[in-house]
């Protein structure tokens, strides 16, 4: 039994929404990073689902998803490095406490 496209899109949209909620509600920078990863992977599910259902003859969606996985890894590496350097300096990874600049 094949799972229809709409199910995949619903899962992806739900994952995106969960990630979005995580980014907006988490005060811990690592939690925020996790939320962003969920959002990126939601888009990945979409890309692969659209490849399977819309353009199965061309590999565009799959290749795109592989690129995104690589890019997300690079982004997470840079992000964690930044979080570590903030922790070394302030002994905190809570985003709200990084507030030396205000207008």
């Amino acid at each position: 039994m094949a799972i229809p496209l709409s199910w995949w899109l619903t899962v992806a949209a739900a994952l995106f929404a969960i990630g979005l909620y995580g980014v907006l509600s988490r005060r811990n920078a690592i939690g925020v990073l996790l939320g962003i990863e969920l959002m990126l992977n939601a888009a990945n599910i979409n890309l692969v689902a659209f490849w399977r259902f819309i353009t199965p003859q061309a590999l565009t969606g799959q290749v795109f998803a592989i690129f995104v996985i690589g890019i997300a890894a690079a982004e997470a590496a840079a992000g964690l490095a930044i979080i570590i350097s903030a922790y070394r300096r302030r002994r905190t990874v809570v985003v709200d406490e990084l507030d030396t600049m205000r207008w």
Partner: protein
Amino acid sequence: MRPQLPTLDLVPLYPLLVVTGWAVLVLLADLFVQHKRALGYLALTGVIVAAVVTVALWPGVPTSFQNMAISDGQALFFNLVFLVTGALGLLVAIEYLERKDLQRGEYYALLMFSLAGMIAMAAAEDLLIVFLGLEMMSVALYVLSGSNQRDMSSIEAAMKYFILGSFASAFFLYGIALTYAAAGSTNLAQIGSWLSGRGIPKDPVALTGLSLLLVGFGFKVALVPFHWWTPDVYQGAPTSVTAFMSVGAKAAGFATLTRVLYSAFSPTFTTDWVTVAAVLAAVTMTFGNLAALVQRDVKRLLGYSSIAHAGYVLVGIAAASPVGVRGMLFYILAYAFMTAGAFAVACAVERREQSTTTLADYAGLAQRSPLLAAAMLLFMLSLIGIPPLIGFWSKLFVFRAAVEANLAWLAVLGVLNSALSAYYYAGVVVQMYLREPGRSPAEEVAFRPWRSALAVAVFLAAAATVVLGLWPGAVVNLLMGV
């Protein structure tokens, strides 16, 4: 059977390859070279080589690299803007990092990687390349803004830039996925022909994709209401980084935004995005200028001013005509010289132990170093849009394009905004020329052209502001061929 490799026409991508290869070279040389300053000059050589290659490729070819890249006049023009910005950014950094005791090899390598990302963005003809270039540029910039590990505001800037930047990337990627669903392709030209030909008229999936892409672009080029990271990041990041990214990242964002709107979402969605762009332009320039009025820190003031200028650039895009695109291209070139120059002066004025410069630090600058003050005066006048400086022509071109496109209200609002902006730019001039220096004046680097790299950068930017202002025809002729 041997797999058939596709033919890759790499010649139009030589600028990108030169910059990427040179970045790796700088990274390797970092292992052996003790004097990190030399790496700055090595990187600068690479930027100059890439600029020569770009000029040699003029006027470019339509598409290359299996239709995934495009190297037309517009892409090559943007390449030149990025390379000029990169060169100014390197010249500023060589001296600034020395004073701040931050001289490290990876700074120069990261700057070049980010430059490569920008060039890829301007050359993108496929959403995959757009995303790849965007991330290549952004990740390098996140790390660069946090490169002053001793300064809490630099780390804070990096953190804010990283979180909001990758948040925006996620929206952008979701938009790409929906656009791919609507058009069955990620190639910009194919998306355009599908949507206007066989696609459903006003396809809601494509429209949602377009909106999410606009949110992503809005973050990257700092349009109101997606601009909240800008002032903090511009203020907190090391000033040499701000000088580079305030121009480079914005120019790259606009390069791709233009390509996506004009090639993929025209003509089916033109009326939709013209409305959105016009409203965003109006809100962005007004908010940027109003917020800049109350700033006390020069880097933050220039940050809000850069938001306002993103609004003016968007006026050119909203005109949705070749005249508008040419106006936008001219504006970005002008903006590169004015803003990079102003941040270079901010580098020179900045004290060794702090990362920000208040307006009070500029008091009496005209007496302490007259040439530096004169250069800053030129940049401020040009940012206001006083003739005959380059900033005047850039505003004239985008506003004229808006009037021709029946957006006269936007042009009027733009002119009013320019008048408003004169107030805070003049505030800097008043500090420099009419106020007595404070008790402990900031210690600028002495302004000795040809002796210090920073001074060379300021001199070049100031010279371009004046010369291209007196002979705008040189650039206009170039743009007519784009």
